[in-house]
């Protein structure tokens, strides 16, 4: 990954992360119903969280 590109991706990821963890998107999953045995809201938050972490990993660690 080009060094300039990595920096751009980080900024993009930050913006996406802020969107994932704020009102309109969170409201879509604001549901206590169980999916795979866990409430949809909990499932959403933790998978989005893991997704952001994975993306940071991808940006920093791949093709250094």
């Amino acid at each position, binding site marked *: 990954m080009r060094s300039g590109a990595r920096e751009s991706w980080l900024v993009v990821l930050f913006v996406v992360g802020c969107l994932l963890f704020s009102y309109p998107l969170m*409201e879509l999953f604001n549901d206590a119903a169980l999916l795979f045995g866990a409430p949809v*809201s909990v499932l959403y938050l933790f998978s989005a*969280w893991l997704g952001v972490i994975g993306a*940071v990993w991808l940006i920093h*660690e791949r093709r250094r």
Partner: protein
Amino acid sequence: MFGGLILLVSLLYLGLLFAIAYYGDRRADRGRSIINNPYVYALSMGVYCTAWTYYGSVGRASSSGLGFLPIYIGPTLIAVLWWFVLRKMVRISRMNRITTIADFIASRYGKSSTLGGLVTVIAVVGVIPYISLQLNAVSASFTLLWGYPELRFDPSDRFTISGLDTALWVTFGMAAFAILFGTRHLDVTEHHEGLVAAIAFESIVKLLAFLAVGFFVTFALFNGPVDLFTQAMADPDAARLATFGAETIDYNQWAWLTFLSMLAILFLPRQFQMAVLENMDENHIRKASWLFPLYLLVINLFVFPIALAGLIVFRHQPMDADLFVLGLPMAAGNELLALFVFIGGLSAATSMVIVDTVALSTMVSNDLMMPLLLKLRIVRPSERGDYGGTLLSIRRIAIVVIMVLGYVYFRVTDTAASLVSIGLISFAAVAQFAPAFLGGIYWKGGTRLGALSGLVAGFLVWGYTLPLAATHSFGGAPDDFLLYGPWGISWLRPHNLFNLTGLDPVSHSLFWSLLANIGAYVIVSLLTRPSVIEQGQASRFVNVFDYSAESEAIFLWRGTATVQALRSLLERFLGQARTERELNDYARRHSLDWTQMHQADAELVQFAERLLAGVMGAASARVAIASVVQEERLSMDEVLKLLDETSQVRAYSRQLENRTRQLEEKSRELEAATAELRAANERLQELDRLKDDFISTVTHELRTPLTSIRAFSEILYDNPTLDEERRTQFVGIILKESERLSRLINQVLDLAKLEAGAAEWNTTEVDLHALITEAVRASSGMAEEKGVRILTRIDAGPPLFVWVDQDRLMQVMLNLLSNAIKFSPEGRGEVCISTERRDDWLIVHVADNGVGIRPEDQKVIFDKFRQGGDRRMGKPQGTGLGLPISAQIIAHFGGKLWVESEPGKGATFSFTLPLSPSDHR
């Protein structure tokens, strides 16, 4: 008995921490650091997770549902940007030998001791609730565990177990531990390797303990998460916890808390200590920016399940939700796990207390007390005395005072307040650093006065809306002050300033305090002029990546100091041994001899100041240095000049040099290429012109015979009755012109072939004399016709061999002979062929006694279609291609064709040929 066990295990655990720290320091001394890797770095940041996370998150989750999460989502999001922000903070701190966050802000705004002191006060006051939270949690968990196997928890008897106030004992115990642990070294810029190793270890312990209780609750008390969630969600009250809304946490509060924790992770003194000051390598930030969030995620996995389980298990039993983590294994009778959980909580609390007290006590000694003592002349650097010990004493006292203040806060505020609500107060306090700090590293316009006013404004609003308000609410019941405002002024209500409603107290406080803070910072900054030193520091901070590591020193100083005065100043704060070592290193680096040097130069003074800054902070170091040197004030112009010269020039000069070198190379290449291109272009244009000339000439030459052929054909066609004689004459002309035409075309093709190098050559050894005889014989008909005699004057002797294409050479000979015959006078013409040998060359001359060739024509006749003589003299007698073709052929053989002539005396064409190797005798 069980109480004694708890104490014993706790002490053993703390002893283990000491062992790890000792080991870490030893390894560092031997140059084999155990913390110099990104994993320990990320783990040491786990100091973010304190008793708040360990006990408080579950409590928070049991009332606000998912409202415990923004505290960890915020850091995850800001960690995405760490590569920009944190790296810059690390770089600045390293280059300026920053010791604390107060030092950082003070340094940025011109090493202002006022600002450093203010930041220290805010940090200490702001972190006190946080420390009280740890005391609260440890004493509460201790009280609960002490009562085992009974599961009784009554807040009122927390303080009086066995007639002792447990929280007070915990306070003193932790203070003693922090003193022993945190104030072992004087220089705070050197990495606390042992401390970092111990904190990283604590991060592992608390994570394992929390995961252990999480697994126990989920898989032992319940049949896995599915069972737990299914049972819990059957209760509508519990199901509500999994959703966002007014009863749990609304999106507004969620957003504010996320934002708040983004700032907290950057500016909490302990986070600054671990992430910035203890950073060993900027590249560790890469791994940390996903490892640390991953740590947060894992430690939070079981928070919600434990909260739900606690609500189910303790449905009919009074239990503080903040203690579910410990209460659940106790209720299940698993005493070993309960003990492990308690140790985990202890590690979470101690890690926070240790790092925060180290950071805060350093701030108090370096940025608050030392400048004060120096200004009040209680400490006089110019006098004899060891002040290193003074600094350490100040730090130790500061730790005790901070811990006691934490205890006092704990006693005077609402004991029923949840852990998280206490911690958030501290978050909001350190958020006040954000404008001055972030403004300081991204905006050169921020001034000292702007930062001061912003911090004061934000701090006052924070103090009024959060901690002050917290002292007016006991047992969860707000008093009149909160409900109706001071003196009944409703718009001054601490939780509803200007009658603002709809925000929870923390978001409300954050909004107003940051509004006041940012507003004051920006407006005052714009209204004030920065001082000289501020401008210098602003540039160093904002453009830190433009400075190379070597260009540390900007000599914004001019003055006089003796080496002796500097040396004794250093000895007083660093000790004699270290001073000696540092100065000797310096002398070696700069090839100096201290015995020869009495007057210190600017660089040495700068060096001494940086050394001192590592011990006592930038602001104090400045005051201390000022006490031993006579400073001359630099004018603004001089400083700007210096800044221009040093910072910018130095920063860019290397880049510029490289760039210039590259450009020069490029332009050289470019010039060469341009010259080549120009030459090629000229050549092309020339060729193009030649081609045009050639084509127009060729067509012209072709048209001449064509025209006559056509004209005579038309005459024959139109006059069938023409008499026989005329007819024969005309057909003869047509025939002759046709021959000329085909000859012309053949020659054009021939020339084109020769020029393109596409002609075929059958080179053999040829006897020149035989060839000349043959040529003469072939031309004899033409010569007789015109009455011209051909004479050959050839040396008798052995035959001369040349290495040529026989047909081609014959072509040349015939051409030269026919030209000579053509231009010889009719009847008395004489053509003479002679050969001569000169070294390895043979020269053949063909001479005539015709009109000769004018000097101006002698060159031109070798051009295509150019013939000698005046065109007006009549119709050309050749094609004008014979000589150019001949010249090409001779050139191919390696010889040369030329003409010598005097007008009226005939012309001599000569060509040379190299002798065949066999003739080299």
